[in-house]
């Protein structure tokens, strides 16, 4: 009998112990992460270690740490940094600095007002000027990186544009005399085809790249803001606009004309891009990161050249997506993070981003790599700018409405008319579910 009692007590004690241990694990640990002084901050980077832009950032971080006697805790997370940030924002354990393109920053941070106003960063003196003045205002005409009260929530440090790329060593004539209008472009494609060369390469499995054709075409027809207006029309009536059908028809023209590389419907990125870089096709419509991405496998003697996407009327805006820093509202070391964000706009790092990382630095006085000279010149001379997909980022719209239908158009499964009517129906249904 006695042993039984003893055993019962043993079991209760064990149970109490387990419960206490779990309770400790669930609550007690929160006290252990001591709050740090302002002498360090965390940065979740969109770059992976080894990428050229990462190396430039790492240099800047080392300099900043030395000059300010601080410690920056960097996590080179790569492009999913913002996806990981969103759930973390519900807690008190957030990074002090993040970066990313506007198109990903807006939905992750600004739409829910979780980003801090960066007045301090904009006012910080960089090379004798407030950092805010180093950002060309004309690029921001169609990108709203400010809260309604005028506070900017993002400090851009890089531009991403796009262009039609070619091997200038093989096609020097495109360098001196690029096609400017849609008619000239089609004529060029026909010439290439007749000469036995594949006109355009594309990796049809990347929905975003496919949508760039239709998206750019709409912007060419009706100017910056047109795609946003089209997508936000709850009645779907905007899809009846003949200009929209015309844009779709031009995509269809490329598909039906057989200008795309054989197998573009059934490749896995970057297969066709690799083929293009080895002269398997003449042209490829791609972002300004093309030289960085494809240099390692490009054919010997390959020379990157580019011309802007042809015009179809009077509209000739250029894509200028901005990419930059933001500070979450809950950041504990926001001041230091803002200081570093401004610090990275220093000429030294902007030059390195241009020359070594082969990116387009935000400062117009920064060095540009020769591969990007054409893109840079086009941007400098452009009168208007647009963003990729015109900044459309409604919840699920791109993934569930635009991409599936646009893929069918781009991969030749449906006609332009079918695309427009499917989009109209899908969009009406979409907005119904969005209250």
């Amino acid at each position, binding site marked *: 009998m006695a042993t039984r009692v003893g055993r019962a007590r043993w079991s209760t004690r064990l*149970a109490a112990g387990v419960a206490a241990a779990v309770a400790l694990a669930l609550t007690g640990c929160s006290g252990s992460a001591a709050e740090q002084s302002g002498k360090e901050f965390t940065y979740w980077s969109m770059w992976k270690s080894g990428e050229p832009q990462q190396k430039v950032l790492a240099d800047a971080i080392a300099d900043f740490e030395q000059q300010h006697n601080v410690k920056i805790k960097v996590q080179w997370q790569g492009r999913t940094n913002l996806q990981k940030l969103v759930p973390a924002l519900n807690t008190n354990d957030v990074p002090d600095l993040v970066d990313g393109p506007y198109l990903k920053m807006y939905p992750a941070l600004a739409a829910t007002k979780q980003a801090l106003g960066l007045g301090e960063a904009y006012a910080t003196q960089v090379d004798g000027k407030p950092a805010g003045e180093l950002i060309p205002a004309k690029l921001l005409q169609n990108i709203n990186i400010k809260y309604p009260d005028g506070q900017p929530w993002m400090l851009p440090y890089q531009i991403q544009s796009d262009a039609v790329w070619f091997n200038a060593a093989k096609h020097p004539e495109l360098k001196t005399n690029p096609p400017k209008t849609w008619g000239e472009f089609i004529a060029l494609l026909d010439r290439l085809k007749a000469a036995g060369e594949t006109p355009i390469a594309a990796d049809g499995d990347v929905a975003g790249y496919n949508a760039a054709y239709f998206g750019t075409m709409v912007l060419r027809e009706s100017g910056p803001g047109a795609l946003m207006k089209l997508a936000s029309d709850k009645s779907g009536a905007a899809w009846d606009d003949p200009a929209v059908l015309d844009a779709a028809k031009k995509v269809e023209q490329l598909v039906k004309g057989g200008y795309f590389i054989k197998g573009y419907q059934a490749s896995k990125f970057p297969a066709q891009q690799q083929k293009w870089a080895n002269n398997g096709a003449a042209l490829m419509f791609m972002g300004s990161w093309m030289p960085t991405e494809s240099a390692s496998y490009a054919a010997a003697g390959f020379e990157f050249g580019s011309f802007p996407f042809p015009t179809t009327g009077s509209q000739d805006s250029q894509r200028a997506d901005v990419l930059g820093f933001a500070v979450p509202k809950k950041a504990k070391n926001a001041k230091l993070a803002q200081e570093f964000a401004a610090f990275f706009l220093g000429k030294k790092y902007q030059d390195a981003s241009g020359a070594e990382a082969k990116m387009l630095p935000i400062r117009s006085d920064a060095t540009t790599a020769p591969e990007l000279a054409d893109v840079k010149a086009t941007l400098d001379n452009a009168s208007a700018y647009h963003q990729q997909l015109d900044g459309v980022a409604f919840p699920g719209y791109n993934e*569930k409405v635009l991409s599936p239908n646009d893929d069918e158009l781009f991969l030749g499964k449906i006609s332009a008319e079918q695309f427009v009517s499917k989009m109209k129906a899908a969009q009406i249904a979409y907005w119904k579910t969005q209250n």
Partner: protein
Amino acid sequence: MTTTALPRASSPETRSTPARRGGSLADQRRRLFVPFVGPALLLYVVLFVVPIFGAVWISFHKWAGSGPMTWSGIDNYRGLVADPLFRQSLGNTLKLLFVVGIAIFVLSFAMALVLRDMAGRKIVRSVIFFPHLVNALVYGILVGFIFNPDGLANSILKPLGVDAPPQWLAQDNLFPLIMVTMVWMTTGYYTTILMAGVDRIPPYYYEDCALAGANAWQRLRHVILPLTWDVFGVCAVLWTISSVKIFEIIWIFGASNGTGVPPAQTWTAAVYTYVTAFSGDSIPAYGAATASAVLSLFLVTVLVVLLRRVMRRDVIEF
């Protein structure tokens, strides 16, 4: 001895034991509830059950993942039911469950039979089991290399005179390709399990069969299948659980090595949920994402219950 691994509420021994054992052992054992079951129950409730209720709660809200949550009732569910993409994703999950499942079981069973008295069966079993140990991501990465227009598959076909090879990676072909890969990965695993079942059958059954002059089909129908039925039951439940979770292979297969979102034709319910919450291309809709997960949970629950009902039958004891 009963051989089923499915917990059944009233297996013969358990029903008979309390009566006979009565007093001390059972009583004392009952008191061990807290130390024996407590930890498992606690972990399960805290890390599993509570989050499920959390998910149901979130699914009635509109929530971008951070910032305010606003109550939206059943709007998320209504939106899902109306969304053809969700229906398609759910359909794909069911395809994986049933089409791939049946293929795996037919193949595994056939292989188990062939392997039973084949020379070198140990080597063969070891080799065909191995693909299961390899992370699905590896297949997703390799498949691009093999099936690209200039990939390995076409470079084999070309010398054979195939000038217009199939467009392996076209969006419509991706999902069938994923299904084939799943079969390749999983068949060896279930073959191994089924072999254990087949090996268990005492040889005198075959001798009896031989004496009775039964042909191969009769042997299969009347001896092998009934005697391995319980193992099938376990395998069916195992496959149901794992098939509903299939995610990474689709993510890498279709999504250009993880740089984007895979084409909608290949989405399963799990991918739909993930895209809705974590695609990064648009404002996250955590409410809708959890709602879709809760709906698939409901579906799976119904299926598992049905499956166990169908698979339940008397176990033959031997």
